[in-house]
């Protein structure tokens, strides 16, 4: 039973992942792409991590998984800010 719920969580997470990637492709400008990327990926990864935690019997690895997820959230927040800032600076220079 646990596995069914885990697989359900993973596939929901995948839905967000795919929407994030497709958003990256179709959205018009860089800022909306970054927005889509950061949001979709984090929620997607959160659900995938939740599913993997249910499948993973060892408690120590579960804690490690949560730490990794928090790190990725912080990482993508900061990185998308940096990229957006850089894009803004670039636009302001040449137009």
């Amino acid at each position, binding site marked *: 039973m646990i*596995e069914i719920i885990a697989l359900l969580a993973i596939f929901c997470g995948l839905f967000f992942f795919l929407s994030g990637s497709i958003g*990256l492709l179709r959205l018009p400008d860089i800022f909306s792409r*970054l927005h889509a990327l950061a949001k979709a990926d984090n929620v997607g990864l959160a659900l995938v991590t939740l599913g993997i935690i249910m*499948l993973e019997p060892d408690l120590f690895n579960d804690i490690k998984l949560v730490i*990794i997820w928090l790190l990725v959230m912080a990482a993508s927040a900061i990185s998308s800010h940096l990229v957006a800032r850089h894009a803004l600076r670039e636009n302001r220079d040449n137009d």
Partner: protein
Amino acid sequence: MTDTSSTSIVTVALLVALNLLMLSLLIGLVRAWIGPKIEDRYSAILLLGTGGVAILFILAILLPLAALYDVALVLALLAIVGTVALTRSEKSDD
């Protein structure tokens, strides 16, 4: 660990998930290839980092290889260093 991955439903489902993640990486790579400006390519690298972490998670269950969690941890940390290096390397430093 091995008992769960031996049941074929979970294995098949995880494998399908793996391939779907691979698909999202491919889409990200299309953006990296055609991305007009440098920032678009950076965003593809970000997608690769997050997608890579997810793929490593699923591989860790499928192969039963617990060490891949450390690899995912390192990948998550290093995604920031790569992006900082990318954004700080332009001639116009902020």
